[in-house]
């Protein structure tokens, strides 16, 4: 390894991941503000394969000699990719970096029957983990959320996934309009019966520039109040814990050892290359840690990559303060918490002992026997305030 390419920060072994964004969906869901586009003509996947490969090459030049621990194909709807496309993307990664023998390769999928038919192909292409966006287990709510599958179809897809993959997970959205603690508990129990090792359970958030935002602003979409939302959160912790799927992050639950390694790279503030329209990356180059953002519009992105070999539209050298903030924002989401020494190494300052003491006294934060700082179960529901307190 060339001396000058040596990273200037201790990585603390947070790993290296590659994120690939497939920016197309068959329909847009009204709550979603991710980078997804609906095209009414068939997408020429070969164009995207070529562009992905060129952009990866560029990323590998920025961050060479890494060993890829995890790969995540997210979207959009990556399960709209042909298995051959997925295979080509994975080949591209292997051509640019060394890949760890136990690499985790996750693909996000919609649980429709059409897509489930491709699961086998994905397995053959190298995917070893499937994450399905089921979102609700009752048909009325599925419809309200703009999902195109039914509960039966989703359960069928879960069964298919279970027969093909050792590891699979699915997402549910809760704290939906009119949801009660009782109805959600019932739904969650049903989900846990079908879950294997991992569940992502997100509270519905109203994002800007979504149809839900308009409805919400107009008063036509009423969310559970703060108190109900807190009760929903608490009951979720309790039920998952009881069923041996403890939370390891704000919204993620897994059996011990079955955590999503890719997301762990983000949360542990590791390094990741983002490839494809709208992807984000954090790479440590000679100049230090930098944030990268890729052009969101798929066609423009193709153009940029053809022109420059990459679609990077934002590159920000992160200041010490920004790195410290990002580290707290991500790390404190984890039940394992953060190592304050790494915070100091990244930000060049120490966390304020007095604030920590106050937070510990309020039982919002605790210090583990290894000296890690972690947010408690009482602290998690108000995590944003805890982070702001520590970061300020």
């Amino acid at each position, binding site marked *: 390894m060339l001396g000058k390419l040596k990273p200037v920060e201790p990585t603390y072994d947070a790993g290296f991941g590659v994120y690939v964004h497939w920016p197309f969906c068959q329909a847009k869901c009204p709550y979603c*503000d991710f980078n997804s586009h609906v095209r009414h003509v068939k997408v020429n996947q070969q164009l995207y394969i070529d562009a992905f490969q060129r952009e990866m090459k560029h990323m590998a030049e920025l961050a060479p000699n890494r060993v890829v621990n995890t790969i995540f194909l997210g979207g959009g709807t990556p399960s709209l990719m042909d298995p051959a496309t997925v295979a080509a993307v994975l080949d591209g990664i292997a051509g640019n970096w060394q890949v760890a023998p136990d690499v985790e390769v996750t693909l996000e999928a919609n649980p429709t029957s059409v897509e489930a038919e491709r699961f086998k192909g994905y397995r053959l292409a190298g995917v070893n983990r499937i994450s399905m966006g089921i979102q609700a287990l009752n048909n009325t709510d599925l419809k309200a959320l703009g999902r195109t599958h039914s509960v039966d179809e989703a359960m069928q897809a879960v069964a298919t996934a279970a027969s093909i993959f050792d590891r699979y997970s699915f997402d549910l959205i809760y704290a939906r309009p009119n949801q009660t603690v009782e109805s959600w508990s019932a739904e969650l129990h049903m989900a846990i019966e079908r879950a294997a090792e991992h569940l992502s359970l997100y509270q519905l958030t109203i994002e800007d520039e979504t149809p839900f935002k308009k409805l919400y602003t107009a008063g036509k979409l009423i969310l559970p109040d703060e108190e109900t939302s807190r009760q929903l959160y608490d009951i979720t912790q309790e039920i998952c814990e009881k069923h041996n799927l403890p939370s390891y992050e704000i919204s993620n639950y897994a059996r011990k050892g079955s955590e999503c390694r890719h997301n762990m790279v983000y949360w542990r503030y590791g390094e990741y290359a983002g490839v494809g329209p709208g992807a*984000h990356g*954090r790479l440590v180059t000679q100049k230090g840690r930098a944030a990268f953002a890729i052009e969101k519009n798929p066609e423009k992105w193709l153009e940029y990559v053809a022109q420059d070999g990459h679609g990077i539209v934002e590159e920000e050298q992160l200041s010490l303060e920004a790195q410290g903030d990002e580290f707290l924002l991500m790390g404190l989401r984890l039940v394992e918490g953060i190592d304050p020494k790494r915070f100091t190494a990244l930000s060049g300052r120490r966390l304020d002992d007095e604030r920590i003491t106050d937070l510990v006294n309020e039982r*919002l934060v605790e210090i583990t026997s290894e000296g890690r700082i972690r947010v408690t179960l009482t602290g998690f529901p108000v995590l944003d305030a805890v982070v702001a307190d520590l970061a300020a």
Partner: protein
Amino acid sequence: MTTIPIENIRNFSIVAHIDHGKSTLADRLIQLTGGLSAREMTEQVLDSMDIEKERGITIKAQTVRLNYKAHDGKTYILNLMDTPGHVDFAYEVSRSLAACEGSLLVVDASQGVEAQTLANVYHALDASHEIVTVLNKVDLPAAEPERVKQQIEDVIGLDASEAVPISAKTGLNIEAVLEAIVTRLPSPKGDVSAPLKALLVDSWYDAYLGVIVLVRIIDGQIKKGMKVKMMGTDATYEVERCGVFTPKMVNMDVLTPGEVGFITASIKEVADTRVGDTITEDKKPCAQMLAGFKPVQPVVFCGLFPVDAADFEDLRAAMGRLRLNDASFSFEMESSAALGFGFRCGFLGLLHLEIVQERLSREFDLNLIATAPSVVYDIKMRNGDLVHLHNPADMPDPMHIEEINEPWIRATILTPDEYLGSVIKLCQDRRGEQIDLSYVGSRAKVIYDLPLNEVVFDFYDRLKSVSKGYASFDYVIREYRPGDLVKLSMLVNAEPVDALSMLVHRTRAESRGRTMCEKLKDLIPPHMFVIPVQAAIGGKIIARETVRAMRKDVTAKCYGGDVSRKRKLLDKQKEGKKRMRQFGKVEIPQEAFIAALKMDN
């Protein structure tokens, strides 16, 4: 300009309620006597002076020297003294009036006598002025000159039979006003051969000339090069120039008895010149100072703090600049646990406070938090010491207090009959004592003695609100009286917030404490923990509310590896925290202080 015999000088001021036409009449007088050319008269002269005032001499007297050829064929010098009309500047007004022998009482012929008119006319009568009554706006359809004349006779007790009906706006009958000034007002008296004795009427700061001093010569004469002495401060200065305002500044060789004019003498600060002081010749001083000289006494105090702590030095500089020109405004550094570093400021009254605050924010672009206004309490300690308390936060331990005295005012309120009940109720609620109630036509005149500390909060706003804006109000400071006053402290999360503490009457402490708690409960945003908000007298809690803890505040999902978006939100949160005041573990937004101190219940 040639010297004019003293018999041909008339010095007068104009007494009027705001909007009754004082400025317009002054303009007409200047125009008719040719003080300014037609071109120069394109705008209201006093209005243009107002702009001048806003730039530095807001609360200053102005004077204009007019030459008028009267019907008797002689030329007269008329000195119009424009005085600030507000009660906050009562002392300054009294000095301006002392420089004149007569006043024009201008009353709007449709609106009649107002509380402010009354107060000012009494000041003029106190100064032994002859009064010429002028009924303005007689051209308006709503004008009722006969009714208003009757009112003037009933309420003020002045003979209004010779009142001059005019319209300052159209210029109707203005000459009759000039004639009345010449024929009905007395000329000044003075001895030109006696040692110099001049009244320091006012002063202001000019960037080019230094301090300009407005003077009225009583005896002797003042000239360029003369070494003069301020008898109140014992300081001596050499006169650099003297002259008059026409209203332009015109240099003269000499000012003689009866004349009103200016001097400059390399005086650096307005604070070096005391309004009401006597100016004499250093070598040949007069035997006695003029009566009525008083040092300035601030009566209302409040703390002013920069919203952004980084602006502290700017605030200090701005206050220094204001003080250059306004010696009646005082400030000293204060530090508050809640608000950081700022200044405790003294003002002549509530209007003065507002003017200074307004100027600091407008002219110096400073964002300020003002604490609740408070008055000066005289505290008699058990050990015999006397403490003047300007800041409730400095209240001594009640164990050592023998007696607290608070300032009382005598308020004159004029209100339409239909609001009388509400006005009386307001005064009673504020511990008022009714002194008199009489009727002036359909309007009631109520005189109340009130503790000033009940007035400084929001009395004026409440009065306007209960009378739909129709009641008018004026007051004079009367005396100090003992009062059963206690210090009400506000505790947030068990820590006292000094900026919110106040002295209140024991009987009103509980309701005020409860109101404050209720307000703070809504103003303090939920934190990660429960925050008790308490009102206390000494160690005794008299009211309590709770700010509930935040129950949920967490971002459910982070999009892919897009931490930047979350970081931007965090930056906003951090920025927001800077606008908060850290209080123990509690962060209180600036707005909460401002809102809590507004006592609009």
